[in-house]
C-alpha cells in the first residue's frame, strides 16, 4: 500500500477501515542468504539497503523484542552532520544527505525537520574550536554559520546570556541540522524492508552463532536454528554479549544515557540547542514536549534507567541555560544502553569469522547515523569491502592506533 495525503483523507472519510499492517509477521525460514541480528534502526536500515542497493531480498532481521523497542525509540532524535575528523566528517555528511531524501525514498513520513542546530560556546578558546569545526563542515560540503552573541540572541532570545558561570559568547549554527520522529524512522525502514521481501522476525532472540572452520553457518535462536551465509551483528548496547557467542571480546563498554520529556507546550523552542558546557541539549517535539538529555551516568550499566544525580544535573543545566522552562513539568525520563567505544567513534567492519560482520560502537550518537550506517553495513556485507565513507571505522584501529577521537580526550573507556 502506498501512503499519500489523498489516502489519509479518504480513510478519514471512510472510517479508517482500509489500513493494512505496515509489515508481515512471518515465521523464520530454515535458511537465508543473510541474517541481521538486531531489529533496531541500524539493523532495519541495513536490511533495507541490502535489498534496495544490492538486490539481496532473501534476508531476515531477528529482533529479540519488538521493532522499535530499543535505542531507536529511546533517543533524543537529533540529526546533524557537524563532525570534524576525516573519517567521521564524510560519513555523517553522507548520512544527512540520505536523511534529506528519506521520506520520499521510504514513502513514509519520518517528520524530518531541518530546523537548525545551534552549538553554543562560552569562551574565546571554544569559539576558535567552533570556527575550526565550522570550516571543516563547510569543506565537507555541509553548512555552518558562526553566530556572535547578538546573532544567537536573534535566534534564541530566551537564553540567559548574562549568567556568570557560562556567559554565552556565540554559537555555531548548522541550518541543515534538526530532528526527526524516531519511531517513524524504525517503522519506515521496517515497512520498506518488508515490502522488498525481508522477513522481520520479532520475539526471536539469538542464543548462539554457528561457526565451522572459521566460517559462519547460521544462528541458534529462541525460535530454532536458522542457517545463513552471512550474519551481521547490529545490537548496540548488547554487542559484547552477541559478539561473545562468536568468541570475540570487543572494545565496548555499555553505559546508560538518560533522556527526558516534558508535558506538551505551545511552540517555544524552534531549534535544536546544544549547551556543551552543561552537557545539555534540547529541542521541542511536534507534539509540544520539550525533549532533552544530558551526559552518561558514567558507570557501566544495562539497567535502562539512570540514577538521580544525573537527573539533578540535567535539570540544573537546563535551568542555567533557559530559566523559562522552570515551570514545565517533566512527564517521563528513561535510559538507553549505549555501546561506548574507547575513542567515541563507531565500528563497521568484518570480523575474524568469514561471513560475520559487526556494526556497533555508536556511543550516544547513533540516531543520526541510522541511514548511513545501514547503507555502509549493507555495502560491506554485500561486497566484502568497506564503503568509502566508513573505511576508517575499523575494529582493529584501537590496536593499531588509528583512532577517531572526535572529542580529543583520549582513547580509554572512562573518557567519553
Amino acid at each position: 500500500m502506498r501512503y499519500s495525503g489523498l489516502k489519509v483523507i479518504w480513510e478519514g472519510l471512510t472510517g479508517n477501515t482500509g489500513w493494512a499492517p505496515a509489515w508481515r509477521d512471518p515465521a523464520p525460514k530454515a535458511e537465508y542468504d543473510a541474517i541481521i541480528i538486531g531489529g533496531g534502526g541500524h539493523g532495519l536500515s541495513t536490511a533495507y539497503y541490502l535489498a534496495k542497493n544490492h538486490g539481496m531480498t532473501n534476508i531476515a532481521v531477528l529482533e529479540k523484542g519488538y521493532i522499535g523497542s530499543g535505542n531507536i525509540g529511546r533517543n533524543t532524535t537529533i540529526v546533524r552532520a557537524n563532525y570534524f575528523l576525516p573519517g567521521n566528517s564524510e560519513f555523517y555528511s553522507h548520512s544527512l544527505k540520505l536523511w534529506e531524501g528519506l521520506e520520499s525514498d521510504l514513502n513514509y513520513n519520518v517528520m524530518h525537520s531541518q530546523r537548525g542546530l545551534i552549538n553554543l560556546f562560552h569562551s574565546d578558546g571554544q569559539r576558535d574550536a567552533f570556527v575550526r569545526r565550522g570550516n571543516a563542515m563547510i569543506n565537507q560540503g555541509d553548512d555552518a554559520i558562526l553566530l556572535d552573541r547578538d546573532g544567537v540572541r536573534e535566534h534564541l532570545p530566551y537564553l540567559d546570556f548574562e549568567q556568570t558561570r557560562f556567559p554565552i559568547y556565540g554559537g555555531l549554527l548548522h541550518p541543515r541540522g534538526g530532528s526527526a520522529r524516531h519511531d517513524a524512522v524504525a517503522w519506515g525502514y521496517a515497512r520498506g524492508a518488508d515490502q522488498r521481501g525481508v522477513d522481520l522476525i520479532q520475539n526471536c532472540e539469538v542464543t548462539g552463532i554457528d561457526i565451522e572452520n572459521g566460517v559462519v553457518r547460521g544462528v541458534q535462536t529462541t525460535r530454532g536454528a536458522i542457517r545463513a551465509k552471512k550474519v551481521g551483528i547490529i545490537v548496540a548496547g548488547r554487542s559484547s554479549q552477541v559478539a561473545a557467542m562468536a568468541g570475540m571480546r570487543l572494545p565496548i563498554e555499555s553505559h546508560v544515557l538518560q533522556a527526558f520529556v516534558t508535558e506538551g507546550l505551545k511552540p517555544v523552542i524552534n531549534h535544536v540547542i546544544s549547551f556543551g558546557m552543561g552537557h545539555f541539549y534540547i529541542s521541542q517535539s511536534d507534539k509540544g514536549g520539550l525533549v532533552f538529555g544530558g551526559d552518561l551516568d558514567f558507570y557501566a550499566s544495562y539497567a535502562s534507567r539512570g540514577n538521580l544525580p544525573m537527573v539533578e544535573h540535567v535539570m540544573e543545566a537546563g535551568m542555567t541555560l533557559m530559566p523559562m522552562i522552570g515551570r514545565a513539568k517533566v512527564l517521563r525520563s528513561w535510559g538507553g544502553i549505549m555501546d561506548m567505544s574507547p575513542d567515541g567513534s563507531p565500528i563497521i567492519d568484518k570480523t575474524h569469522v568469514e561471513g560475520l560482520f559487526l556494526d556497533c560502537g555508536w556511543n550516544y550518537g547513533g540516531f543520526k547515523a541510522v541511514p548511513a550506517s545501514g547503507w555502509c553495513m549493507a555495502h560491506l556485507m554485500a561486497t566484502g569491502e568497506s564503503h568509502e565513507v566508513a573505511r576508517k571505522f575499523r575494529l582493529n584501529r584501537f590496536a593499531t592506533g588509528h583512532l577517531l577521537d572526535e572529542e580529543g580526550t583520549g582513547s580509554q573507556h572512562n573518557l567519553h
Partner: protein
Amino acid sequence: MRLTCPLCGSRDRREFHYYGAADYLHRPAAEDAPDAWDIYLHLRDNPAGVVRDLWYHELGCAQWLIVTRNTVTHEISGVALVAESAK
C-alpha cells in the same frame, strides 16, 4: 545509588568517581607487546550481570575501591579496598 566505603561507611554515589572495569588493575609492563596494552586499555567482557569495577572515593577517604556490582539491577554486593585486595 549508595556505596558502602570500608573506611567511611554508606555514602552517596556523588562522592565517588567511576574509573572502569577492574581490568585496569592489570597494567602491562612498559616493554610488553602492543597487544597487551590493547587488551588492557580497550577490550572488555562488559557483562550484563555481576561486574567488578574500580571506583575512587574522591570526596571521602581518597581510597581506590573494588566494587562488586550488578549492571542490570544496580545492586551492590561488595566494596573492598584495592590496597587490601589480592587484585
